[in-house]
C-alpha cells in the first residue's frame, strides 16, 4: 500500500542520522578559513609584532565598522539582494552625530535618533525593491548617491570633533583582560546571533530559498516581501550604528566618512564564498573573508607593503573568489561528461519494481 494511513512517527527521522559529510571540506568558505589560518600562522612566524595583543587589538578594531555592516549584508546577498548604500548611510549617520552634537544634543538622544534615520533609510531601499519592484542594485546605487548627498547637506565639509571621552574610550578600549576591543566584542555577539538566524531558523531557510528561486519560495507561502523589507531595514540600522562607531573611533564626524567602504564590505562577503547570485554561502565564510582582508591588510602594512599593493591584492582575491569555484566546477563537469562519452559511466539503477501496481488493474 503506497499511502500509509498515518505518519510512521518520529522513528523515520532517527533512522537517518545527520552524518558529517567530508565533501564539505572542499567548499570555498572552508578554504578561505584555512587560508586565514595559514596567513595568520605565516604572519606570526615571520613578522615580530604581528601576534602581539596590541597589534591584534588594533587590527581587529580596524574592521569593526565593515564587520558590523557585513553581517546583514551577508543575509541580503544570500537572499539575492545587495545594498550599496551602506557606506553612504554610515556617512549620513556620522554627519548627523556631528551636527546634532554641535547643536548641543546629548549623546543619549543622538544615538536613537541616528539609528531611527538608519532604519528609515533602509525602509526606503526595501520599499523601492519590494513594493515598486525595482532591482536592488539600481535602487541602492541611487540611495548611495542620495544618502551621501544628504550627509554633505547636513554637515558640508566641516568636521566635528571633541566628543566626550566616555564614549570615544568605549570604542577604543579592549574588553578587560583580552585584546578584543568593545566594538569587536559586540560584532562577535551579533555575528553569533546572525549565524543562528541564517543557519538554524526558518527565516534563514527562507533566505536561501528566496535567493536561489524567489518564485518557488513565494509559492511555498514564504512572506518574501516582508522578509526583504526587514532585511533592508536592518542593513540601514547597522550602517547607521557603524557610523556612530566610526565617528567615535576616529573622534571626527565628517560627511565623507567611510567613502567607498561599501566595496570593502561586499568584497569581504563575496570573498567568503557567499554567492553573488544568492542562495549559497555561509556566515562563517563571510566572517572568514572579512578577517582575511583585515589581517592581510595589517600584515602587509607591518611589512611595509604599500597601500597600492594592498588594493591590488584585495582585487585579485575578489576575482579569484568567484573564478576559482567556477573553474573547479567546469573541470568536474568536463571530466564527468568525458566519462559519459567514453561509455563507462555508471548505469543508473533500473527502475525498481513497483509493488502493488500489477495487482491494481481494476
Amino acid at each position, binding site marked *: 500500500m*503506497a*499511502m500509509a494511513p498515518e*505518519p510512521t512517527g518520529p522513528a523515520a527521522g*532517527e533512522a537517518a542520522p*545527520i552524518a558529517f559529510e567530508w565533501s564539505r571540506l572542499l567548499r570555498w568558505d572552508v578554504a578561505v578559513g584555512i587560508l586565514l589560518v595559514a596567513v595568520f600562522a605565516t604572519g606570526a612566524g615571520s613578522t615580530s609584532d604581528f601576534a602581539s595583543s596590541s597589534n591584534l587589538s588594533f587590527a581587529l578594531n580596524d574592521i569593526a565598522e565593515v564587520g558590523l555592516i557585513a553581517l546583514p549584508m551577508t543575509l541580503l546577498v544570500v537572499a539575492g539582494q545587495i545594498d550599496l548604500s551602506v557606506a553612504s548611510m554610515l556617512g549620513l549617520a556620522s554627519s548627523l552625530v556631528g551636527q546634532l552634537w554641535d547643536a548641543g544634543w546629548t549623546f543619549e538622544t543622538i544615538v536613537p535618533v541616528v539609528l531611527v534615520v538608519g532604519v528609515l533609510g533602509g525602509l526606503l531601499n526595501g520599499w523601492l525593491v519590494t513594493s515598486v519592484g525595482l532591482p536592488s542594485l539600481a535602487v541602492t546605487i541611487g540611495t548611495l548617491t542620495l544618502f551621501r548627498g544628504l550627509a554633505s547637506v547636513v554637515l558640508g565639509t566641516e568636521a566635528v570633533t571633541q566628543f566626550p571621552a566616555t564614549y570615544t574610550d568605549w570604542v577604543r578600549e579592549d574588553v578587560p583582560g583580552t585584546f578584543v576591543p568593545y566594538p569587536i566584542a559586540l560584532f562577535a555577539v551579533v555575528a553569533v546571533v546572525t549565524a543562528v538566524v541564517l543557519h538554524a531558523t*526558518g527565516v534563514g531557510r527562507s533566505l536561501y530559498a528566496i535567493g536561489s528561486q524567489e518564485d518557488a519560495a513565494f509559492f511555498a507561502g514564504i512572506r518574501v516581501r516582508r522578509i526583504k523589507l526587514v532585511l533592508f531595514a536592518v542593513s540601514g540600522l547597522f550602517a547607521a550604528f557603524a557610523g556612530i562607531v566610526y565617528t567615535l573611533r576616529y573622534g571626527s564626524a565628517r560627511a565623507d566618512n567611510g567613502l567607498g567602504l561599501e566595496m570593502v564590505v561586499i568584497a569581504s562577503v563575496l570573498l567568503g564564498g557567499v554567492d553573488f547570485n544568492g542562495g549559497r554561502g555561509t556566515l562563517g565564510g563571510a566572517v572568514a573573508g572579512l578577517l582575511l582582508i583585515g589581517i592581510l591588510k595589517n600584515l602587509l602594512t607591518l611589512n611595509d607593503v604599500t597601500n597600492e599593493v594592498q588594493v591590488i591584492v584585495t582585487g585579485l582575491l575578489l576575482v579569484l573568489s568567484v573564478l576559482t569555484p567556477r573553474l573547479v566546477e567546469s573541470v568536474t563537469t568536463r571530466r564527468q561528461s568525458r566519462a559519459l*562519452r567514453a561509455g563507462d559511466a*555508471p548505469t543508473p539503477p533500473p527502475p525498481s519494481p513497483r509493488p502493488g*501496481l500489477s495487482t491494481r488493474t481494476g
Partner: protein
Amino acid sequence: MNKSDSVRPPVLALRGVSKSFGAVRALRDVSLELHAGEAHALAGENGAGKSTLIKTLAGVHRPDVGEVLLNGEPVVFHGPKDARDAGIAVIYQEPTLFPDLTIAENIFMGRQPRRSLGRIDHRAVRRTTGELMRRLGVSLDADRLARGLSIADQQIVEIAKALSFDARVLIMDEPTAALTGSEVARLFSVVEALRAEGAAVLFISHRLEEIFSLCQRVTTLRDGRWISSEPVAGLTEDDLVRRMVGRDLDELYPKQQTTIGQVALSVRRLTREGVFRDVSFEVRRGEIVALAGLVGAGRTEVAQAVFGVDRADAGEVRVDGRALPPASPTAAMDAGLALVPEDRRQRGLVMEMSIERNIGLTGLGSLGRGGLVRRALERGRAADWAARLQLKYNRLSDSVEVLSGGNQQKVVLAKWLATKPSVLIVDEPTRGIDVGTKAEVHRALSALAADGLAVLMISSDLPEVLGMADRVLVMHEGLLVAEIPRSEATEESVMAAATGRNTHSGRAA
C-alpha cells in the same frame, strides 16, 4: 504529392543516438529519418525523450554516442546556429522571444537582410515581416514589441521565423497545445504548403487525431528508447497508444471509489481582468475534480488566484466555509489549501536545495520552537513523506536537481502533503514524468481523495482527466464553459467544450 524516395538519403537523420544528463538517460540508441516532402510524427509519453531528440536535431545538445546525418552525411552541430544554417527550423513548445524587441526583430535576429557596408536594411526587415504576416493571414504589427503578446500570437511569430528562411526541415514541438481550432487549421495549411514544396516536417502532438490527419509516418519513443517507425496508414489510435505506453491503460488510472463529502473549496465569481472572468465552482471532500481546457485558457491562472499567488480583481474563495483574504498564499496555506504548481523547476522546488529542506520549506514554523529549525524534525518530516510516496533517492541531503522528473514531482507532493491540507490543487501533476511514476502519482492522488482530501487537478492530458476525475470542469478563453460528470465525460465532449465548439466536427486539414 511527394513520396519519400527510398533512393535519396533522408534530409535529416539520427543514427544510434544516446544522450544522458547526469544519471538520467534521456535517449538510448535512437534512430530517426526525415524525408523531403514527408510529415513525420514523433509520438511518446511525456518524458519519453521527445524534447531531447528535438534539441539534438536543433544543435542545442550534442549526442554522447551516435551521429546526426544531413543528406546522408554525418554532421556536427556546434550550436543552434549551425542547425539553422543547415535549414532546420524549430518551433518549441514554449516560444522563445525577446520581449524587449519588435516582432520584426524577433523574426530576423542574426539574419537581418543587409544593405551596403553590412548595415541592416530596416525597411526590408519590416516589409518582409509584413509579407510573412500576410501569408500567415494575421495582422500583427511588425513594429510591435513582443512583450505582452498572447501565447497564440507568440507562436505565430515563431512560425513566421521558420517561414522566413525557407526551412528544409521544420520541427514543431506541440505547436497546437495553446491554439484554438481555427488557429490549428491555419497552422496546418501552412505546414501542408511547406511540405508540398519539399520540406521535411517533424511534428509532435499529444492530440493523436492531429498526427493522423497531418502525418505520413510516425516514430514512437518510450523511456528514451526507439520503439517503432512505420507509416501512419493502417495504424489505429489504439495501436499507437499501445506503442507509446507499452502496457494496458487501465493500470495508469487506478481510480478508487470514494464517498463524496462536504464542500471543501468553494470559488465564487472569481475574476482577474484580461485572464479569466466569473469563475465559480466547488470541490467536495473525497472528490477529484479536473480542470480541463487548452493551454492558455486560464486554468493555471485560476489556480494561482485561488491560492493567492496572483491577486484576483473580484470574487471570493472559501475553504471549509471560511473566506480567504485576497492575495496571501500564507493565509491560504493556514486555511488548509495546497498548490502543486505546473512549473516544477521554477516554482515547485528550489532546485539547488536538498530534498529535506525542500520538503521542510512549507513547515518552517512547525519544525522547532521560537522560529528555530531542528534538523532532526526537518529530516523526520522528509523521511516520513519520502517513504509514503516511495521516493527514490540516495540521501535526503542530496539536492533535488539529481532526481528524475517523477521523483522531483513526488518531492513537491510531499512538501505539500506534509502541511496536511484539506484541499490540494495540482497543476499538470504528471507532465514530463515517466509512465511508472505517473501511475504512482495517480495512485497517490486517488488514495488521498479516498482519505477525504478534496483534489482539484488541472491537466492537459485527456486520458488522465477522463481516468481520474469524478467531475470535469472545462475552461475556454478565460471562461468556465462546461461541467461534465464522470459518466458523460469523453474525449469528444471535453475537447468540444475546450475548443469552444458546440458539436463535434472534423478538424480542417
